[in-house]
């Protein structure tokens, strides 16, 4: 689904952060925005409510520069995690090239993670997309908090297929770039 535009020599790839509400999707994006070279990033757009919950999406374009004559750009999006914003989540998935599922490691969020994963499958299916054919990684976020599930438990619940997964503490930046790099490399591989 990535668009290679030979006429304008451009390649654009869309990566979406998905997952349960308050799981850390926006924090991932904010960390990327704050830590990459300002020359390579565009303006970050956050459509949020007054309490800073994502209302529609966050958006961050990242320019990889000209790679062998193709201007290459990643468009990073987050979706609103709150259950009742499903229509918005679904819209953001249109034309997706790669997905990062941000799971909240806290034990009491286990059910919400599973629900969000099911919701991802459902929304992709409604567009005729098959997650097994889309570059996909899972991030187990908030590893620094008390009462978190073990990674093995989380894998069993969320990652039976064994897609690439990463532990993270997005507030500190741990695992943020590793996850993004993992999916981005999978996305560029699909272009060959």
């Amino acid at each position: 689904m990535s668009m290679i535009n030979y006429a304008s020599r451009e390649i654009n790839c869309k990566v979406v952060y998905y997952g349960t509400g308050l799981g850390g999707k926006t924090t991932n994006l904010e960390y990327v925005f704050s830590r990459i070279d300002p020359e390579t990033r565009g303006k970050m757009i956050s459509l949020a409510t007054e309490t800073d919950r994502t209302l529609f999406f966050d958006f961050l374009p990242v320019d990889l520069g000209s790679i062998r004559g193709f201007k290459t750009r990643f468009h990073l999006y987050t979706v609103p995690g709150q259950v009742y914003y499903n229509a918005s989540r679904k819209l953001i998935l249109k034309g997706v090239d790669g997905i990062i599922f941000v799971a909240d490691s806290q034990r009491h969020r286990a059910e919400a993670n599973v629900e969000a994963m099911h919701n991802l499958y459902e929304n992709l299916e409604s567009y005729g997309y098959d997650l097994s054919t889309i570059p996909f990684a899972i991030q187990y976020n908030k590893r620094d908090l008390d009462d978190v599930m073990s990674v093995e438990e989380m894998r069993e619940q969320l990652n039976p297929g064994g897609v690439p997964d990463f532990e993270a503490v997005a507030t500190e930046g741990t695992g943020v770039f590793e996850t993004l790099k993992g999916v981005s490399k999978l996305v560029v591989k699909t272009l060959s």
Partner: protein
Amino acid sequence: MSGDPGRSAGEARARIRSALGELVKADEAEFGLLLEDSGIVSAAAGSPGKTDPVAFGSLASAYVAAVSDLAPALGGGRFSQLLQTGPRSRIRLLPMPAGRAAVLLHRSRGATEGGLDEEGPDAAPLEAAIRALAKVETRAGDRRVGREWIRAAEHEIDRIFREKS
């Protein structure tokens, strides 16, 4: 159109750029973008001035997507167009075939200037060009890059997605 799918797609894209340019002129807009349903800008015409086309395109695309999904609730199949007027600029959003949308940006020339006319420009040539592309576009044919490109891209990903020093 030639029999070569890659060449035909290239010709169709050139036709789209030309038709978008004509649409911008006909509407007397400053610039125009053709947006994919993913929010990515696939063609541009005119001069964006200080407007960031990528950010503008993502917001316009989300706007179009939301209104398109609302249209059935209002009893319509799809919206015909959207006009929004601000003190400095005005935009016209037009739905296009294959989930695409065109957005035309107008700068206001004065406080007394009226809004955009509701009839709008003739978008048929652009629609036809998009349909022509849809006929010849093949995912695989459009997506190929070589292994060297992949290696170079992976190198750039490692370079860009890291903590700045």
